[in-house]
């Protein structure tokens, strides 16, 4: 059983790494986004292997089901000109490299200060553990304020996004559905008793 878990871990991790690599190397942005989706799936699988079912499914639900769909939605509709995107590559290379180096250094620092071996092994999981409940209790007690603040920030972001994109377009024909529906036949039709030319 342990062996199966280990094999699965390596399989998922390998796919995760490869697809993560493909995200940045794929030529077509739609494929990039799809590789990212694959990466999320494998990450979710890793969570499941760890027994963190809630986290795994939430990852799929939120990132795969909502965030990436929106990404794809936008990418699909953009007429992306890869040539033009590549034009600025050399110009932005130094900045990109600098950020990458900082990132690598940070990671090294993390591993340096807390090498893998020194992290205490997790205790045995109690038989009737419910990690949804556990997470909920932790979030709504110990981390209540950070949680609420994060929620408020998201709310502000939503309102800002709506405010930014809300505009009236004068050139499109649009109807008011309520008015459309609320109409009686008799209001619109008129029975005319037409008279022909006098004989």
């Amino acid at each position, binding site marked *: 059983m342990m062996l199966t878990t280990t094999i699965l871990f390596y399989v998922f991790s390998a796919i995760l790494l490869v697809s993560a690599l493909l995200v940045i190397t794929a030529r077509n942005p739609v494929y990039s986004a799809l590789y990212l989706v694959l990466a999320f799936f494998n990450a979710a699988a890793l969570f499941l292997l760890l027994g963190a079912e809630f986290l795994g499914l939430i990852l799929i639900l939120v990132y795969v089901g909502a965030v990436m769909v929106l990404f794809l939605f936008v990418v699909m509709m953009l007429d992306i000109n890869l040539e033009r995107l590549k034009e600025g590559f050399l110009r932005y290379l130094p900045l990109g490299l600098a950020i990458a180096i900082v990132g690598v250094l940070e990671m090294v620092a993390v591993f340096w200060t807390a090498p893998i071996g020194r992290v205490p092994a997790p205790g045995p999981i109690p038989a009737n553990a419910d990690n949804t409940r556990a997470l909920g209790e932790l979030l709504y007690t110990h981390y209540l304020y950070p949680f609420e603040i994060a929620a408020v920030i998201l709310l502000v972001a939503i309102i800002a996004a709506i405010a930014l994109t809300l505009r009236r377009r004068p050139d499109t*024909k649009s*109807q008011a559905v309520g008015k459309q529906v609320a109409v009686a*036949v008799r209001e619109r*039709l008129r*029975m005319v008793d037409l008279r022909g030319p006098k004989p």
Partner: protein
Amino acid sequence: MLLAEILQRRFAAHPAGDARDELPDFWLPESQILPALAYLRQEREPAMRLLFDLTAREEETASGSQLCLIYHLHSLQPGDWLRLRVSLTGEKAPSCCAIYPAANWYEREIYDLFGIVFTRHPDLRRILLSPDWEGHPLRKAEPLRATERPPLRFERGCLQEQLAVYNPEDAPGEGEMLLNVGPHHPGTHGILRYRLRLRGERVVSVDPDIGYHHRGVEKIAEGHSYHNFIPYTDRVDYLGGVLGEWPYLRAVETLADIRVPERAEGIRTLLAEICRIESHLVWLGSYGNDLGTMGPAFYAFRDRSLLLDLIEDFTGGRLHPQFFRIGGVAEDLPEDWQEKLRPVLDRVEAGLRDTQALSIDNDIFRARTRGIGQVSTAMAERWGATSIVLRSTGSAWDLRKTEPYGFYPQLQFAVPTASDGDAWSRTALHLEEIHESITILRQLLRMMPSGPVLARDAAEALMPKDRTLQDIETLIHHFEQMAAEFGPPAGVALGLGESARGMLGYFVCSDGGPRPQRLRVRTGSFPHVQMITELGQGLAIPDFIASIGSLDYVLADLDR
């Protein structure tokens, strides 16, 4: 000052002598076309708002063939029509698109079929035939039958080249997308292609590509005797049944000066109204399909099949009764026609409640059609729209009332009109017109006159078959008719009818021979589809489908 005087003084017109109908008819010199049309459209009171039809004719004269253009104008006042004819010296004529936008397609059609080039035309392309067609089929020099032409072949490999001709301006503009709706698309009601330029899902411009259904009815007519052509008229608008036969026969009967007996007029009116209901029901059903609801189609077709059974019972045909004859109708109604008609009317009327509940009374249906595809009266007149499209804009105009024919003068019925000109109004009008038609039929149940059903005194009227077996005179006459020995006297006549698709006009030119020298079919669908070039702009695809569907065009009626 009378119109005739003005035309004669200002525009050097002279009256035409060969008009056998009551339309004022004038020959104009070529240089006076545009000034005269501009005067009639803009200055004259009441203005000639409708370019009803524009067509051409090639006549054999002593000096060779002679092309002329024929304009039919109407002011939407009862009986106020005008026919203008222009003899062309060459194969060029000025375009009147600037005065009558509706002329655009008519001129393209004339260019296509006659080869007359219109100067200053905004978009002179072939319209009915394919762009690579050679020749102009309505010219007299062209063979009458397809079999006399060399076979149409596509060389292997050049198909792409051929297809490229269909898309001369395919490259869409910046941020635009080109979408072919059709020729095979469920929303176009047949084989018809709309080339849409889209920005997002909004239509920027529409270019309808028609002609897929073109059968050359007008050319076919030149090869048939007057009587033999009747079945073709059913098939021009294949949903209209006898509604298509009537205007043709009115034209021929005017030419031949035949008085149709009372009972024949009654039977014609009866069958025409049954066909109108039937045609409206088909549209109601298929329009539901355009909006994604399956229900109305089945409810409408249920009632329609009752009516078709009735037509079959009365005439022997279903979709194409071919029942009218020159001078009357083929047979009398069966003796028990009243007992048969009455229950069907009741059932159709009851069935309408279902159709209405599923269409105009449904909230989603209203949300989809109210304010969609709006046509103003001015727009309808600009493009030559008639019948329901025109009535939906609030203009009360119905040929059955304004220039009553058949048995209509004796009948009581109202003309439903709507105020908004949108798709919903047109749906509601279809329903209301069915109610009115039922009223008409109920009156006919009581008022159907008695008497003969065929004018026996006229030479052109068909001899009754039973009598040909009895006396030799009739047999000889019948034989001569069947052998296409004679036709109505020379002249021209316009026959009009209020069909389900719009106003239908048959303009028949006779040279005294057994076959029409020229026969022109003016259908309602043609201007309605042309109007889509303006109507479609700015609509989203679902609204576009809802709008074109609401115009109630039939492809065979459009392309003839």
